[in-house]
């Protein structure tokens, strides 16, 4: 879109690299099937624990992160790269800068996905949601992301189109923001080849995690898909976007506002109230730009609605954009503190996430895939009717899923906070609330099966279209004038006439720097006070570091993914303090690297479970949860009583925590293994005396019991006992 009078008349010919787009598209479909299949499996596990199969690597706590990582980074990630590689080349009128980097990006990303699929079921994870992968894989992600970014910016540098279309802006914001988020949320101290501890603790770690978690949704599941919407929707509808001006506002308001909103994931927790309020305020502000984008998308179809009835691509896009609107209305709603008090920890959040993931992300991907298939594989779409069937079956699947889980979430929230006429909890036994949800969980399974059936149809359609394509793909030659020179800088008064923004749109480096500044400044506004204000985390004298054995138990808690179902955060809400005990204080978590507050309560909160039951109860509960709670849906963990505890890992763990500033004495660090063995003997002896199995002192189970029995007990100790524990005298309990 060279300006009149500035066009450089030297014409250049070039060929796009569509082979890389084909690779990413096929990977999208393959990983989508895997990720959604794991989703159906874990949905089954919640409906009936028998589907955990009694095996470590198929239990819910290990598979749930595999599901989220597979659908986010494998399915949506490969889809993003499909859309970016196709549209970037065409919008910039240039082949990708480096074919080698494109291939490095593709194979590197697939290797990362395979590494995730192997390590997560093995219990290798660092517990942070959507950032579970351990440090070697995190390093690989950073390197591959750099390769991708260099390739995109290299393509921008050699472009033949001066103006950067708004889709490219959205892609740039993704490249910049994801790099910042990934690096700073994954700063760790290494404690082994596959073990690390977050450098942040407790409140600060929670803040950093949800700064990352929320903005992963923003800059991985929203901005790149909006870029794809602004490119593929006009292509499919064969008409320009309704308002390019609105798209610019959409872009800048999202970039300015999204980054602030993370703390709304931590309302009423031990996070300081000012951060919580800030997060809520900016979340509510997000509603308008998001709806501006939705309206812009839907109005692009003005005069083309008749095409929607005939074209499955447009059907998918229309429903996707509608779900974008619904999700971005519901997100701000959920961020309001009083609403969040009801919704947090319930399935309402899960319904919200899946409305966005299945409706917005999934349908954008399917619309794009069906539009690309004939163009990439140079053959007619194998079956338009199958694509139509995919659309309807998947739509019904989403509706069944979200209606059932919205109902489950509301049921949970209302039952947890219900009081009887005497002022006591109406449902004091947590399992009562769980049992109510089981029928809804079966409806979710049905919805998931329908959705994945549609995905199978899509895969079949893609394979058959691929098969009917030519043996060797044609590579059409394109032609465009070389890059026009930049317009001269505006004279005085240019700012007043807003010529600066027009210049930025042709200056990718300046543009990217300003995007980075917007993201970093907004982040620092929250991060700096969070880390520097001492009053944010008042210290509690009675709180001391975990013993070496408790720390080892904590590592097992993380490896088994217990935090996927159990929170460790009692909010200052009457229904919670009556059910679980005194509300959680920020100072209780100062040695928690990483924090384990969790985000859902499939099972009850564990913040004060320490001392609530005898050791033997925990042993029986882990062997078979139904033996202590007949209707429990928790998986059994029989292997914990058989798996020897790795004493060398205990020593490395204490040393790493000491490096992070946890005040272990040099003697405790040197003799961590000995102290752990001593405490393990005491607990194993107590279990045997209570009538339980003998000889557990060498097993992982005894470490997990030690950790669970410690939870929430520090602030109940008399100060003299606490001081003795802190001075290193109390290796045991």
């Amino acid at each position: 879109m060279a300006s009149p009078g500035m066009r450089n008349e030297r014409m250049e010919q070039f060929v796009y690299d569509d082979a890389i787009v084909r690779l990413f598209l096929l990977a999208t479909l393959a990983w989508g099937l895997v990720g959604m299949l794991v989703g159906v499996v874990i949905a089954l596990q919640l409906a009936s624990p028998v589907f955990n199969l009694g095996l470590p690597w198929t239990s819910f706590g290990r598979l749930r992160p595999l599901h989220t990582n597979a659908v986010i980074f494998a399915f949506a990630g490969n889809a993003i790269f499909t859309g970016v590689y196709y549209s970037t080349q065409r919008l910039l009128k240039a082949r990708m800068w480096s074919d080698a980097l494109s291939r490095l990006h593709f194979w590197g990303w697939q290797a990362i996905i395979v590494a995730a699929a192997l390590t997560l079921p093995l219990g290798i994870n660092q517990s942070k949601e959507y950032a579970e992968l351990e440090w070697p894989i995190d390093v690989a992600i950073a390197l591959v992301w750099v390769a991708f970014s260099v390739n995109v910016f290299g393509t921008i540098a050699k472009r033949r189109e001066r103006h950067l279309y708004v889709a490219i802006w959205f892609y740039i914001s993704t490249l910049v923001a994801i790099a910042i988020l990934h690096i700073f949320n994954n700063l760790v101290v290494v404690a082994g080849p596959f073990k690390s501890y977050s450098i942040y603790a407790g409140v600060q770690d929670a803040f950093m995690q949800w700064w990352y978690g929320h903005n992963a949704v923003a800059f991985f599941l929203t901005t790149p898909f909006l870029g794809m919407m602004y490119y593929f929707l006009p292509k499919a509808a064969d008409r320009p976007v309704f308002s390019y001006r609105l798209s610019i506002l959409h872009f800048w308001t999202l970039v300015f506002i999204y980054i602030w909103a993370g703390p709304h994931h931590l309302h009423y927790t031990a996070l300081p109230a000012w951060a919580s309020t800030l997060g809520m305020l900016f979340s509510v502000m997000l509603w308008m730009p998001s709806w501006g984008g939705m309206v812009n998308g839907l109005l692009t179809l003005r005069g083309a609605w008749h095409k929607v009835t005939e074209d499955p691509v447009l059907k998918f896009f229309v429903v996707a954009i509608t779900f974008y609107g619904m999700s971005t209305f519901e997100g701000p709603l959920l961020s309001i503190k009083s609403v969040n008090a009801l919704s947090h920890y319930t399935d309402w959040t899960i319904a919200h996430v899946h409305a966005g993931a299945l409706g917005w992300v999934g349908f954008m991907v399917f619309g794009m895939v069906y539009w690309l298939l004939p163009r990439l594989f140079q053959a007619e779409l194998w079956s338009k009717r199958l694509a139509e069937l995919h659309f309807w079956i998947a739509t019904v699947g989403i509706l069944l899923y979200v209606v059932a889980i919205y109902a489950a979430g509301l049921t949970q929230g209302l039952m947890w906070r219900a009081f009887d006429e005497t002022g006591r909890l109406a449902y004091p036994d947590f399992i009562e609330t769980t049992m109510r949800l089981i029928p809804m969980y079966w409806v979710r399974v049905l919805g998931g099966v329908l959705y994945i059936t549609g995905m199978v149809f899509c895969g079949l359609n893609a394979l058959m279209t691929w098969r009917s394509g030519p043996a060797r793909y044609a590579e059409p030659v394109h032609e465009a004038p070389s890059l026009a020179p930049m317009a001269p800088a505006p004279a005085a008064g240019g700012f007043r006439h807003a010529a600066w923004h027009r210049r930025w749109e042709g200056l990718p480096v300046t543009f990217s720097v300003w995007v980075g500044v917007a993201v970093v400044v907004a982040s620092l506004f929250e991060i700096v006070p969070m880390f520097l204000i001492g009053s944010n985390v008042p210290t509690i004298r009675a709180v001391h570091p975990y013993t070496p054995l408790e720390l080892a138990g904590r590592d097992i808690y993380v490896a088994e993914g217990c935090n996927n179902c159990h929170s460790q955060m009692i909010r200052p809400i009457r229904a919670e303090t009556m059910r679980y005990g005194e509300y959680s204080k920020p100072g209780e978590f100062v040695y928690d690297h990483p924090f384990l507050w969790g985000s859902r309560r499939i099972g009850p909160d564990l913040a004060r479970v320490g001392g609530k039951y005898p050791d033997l109860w925990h042993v029986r509960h882990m062997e078979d949860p139904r033996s202590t709670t007949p209707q429990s849906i928790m998986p059994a963990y029989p292997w914990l009583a058989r798996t020897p505890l790795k004493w060398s890992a205990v020593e490395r763990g204490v040393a790493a925590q000491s490096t992070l500033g946890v005040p272990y004495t040099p003697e405790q660090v040197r003799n961590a293994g000995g102290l752990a063995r001593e405490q393990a003997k005491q607990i194993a002896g107590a279990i045997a005396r209570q009538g339980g199995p003998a000889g557990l002192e060498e097993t992982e189970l005894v470490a997990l019991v030690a950790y669970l029995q410690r939870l929430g007990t520090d602030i109940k100790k008399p100060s003299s006992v606490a001081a003795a524990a802190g001075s290193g005298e109390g290796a045991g309990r």
Partner: protein
Amino acid sequence: MKLADVMSAMHFDLLAQVALVIAVAGFVTVMVAVFLARNREPFRRAALMPLADDTVVRRPGDRA
């Protein structure tokens, strides 16, 4: 006195309002830039970019 002490003594209740003012100011600035009448034509042309990006001049088999 440490930096943390200084920060702790500050009143951050105003932070949300200050941030809000900055965000609104940024929003108004961009809105003015976008809706100035003189920018109408460039934006109209920009909106057409996805529809004009696939000009094939030669397919394999065509004579160069």
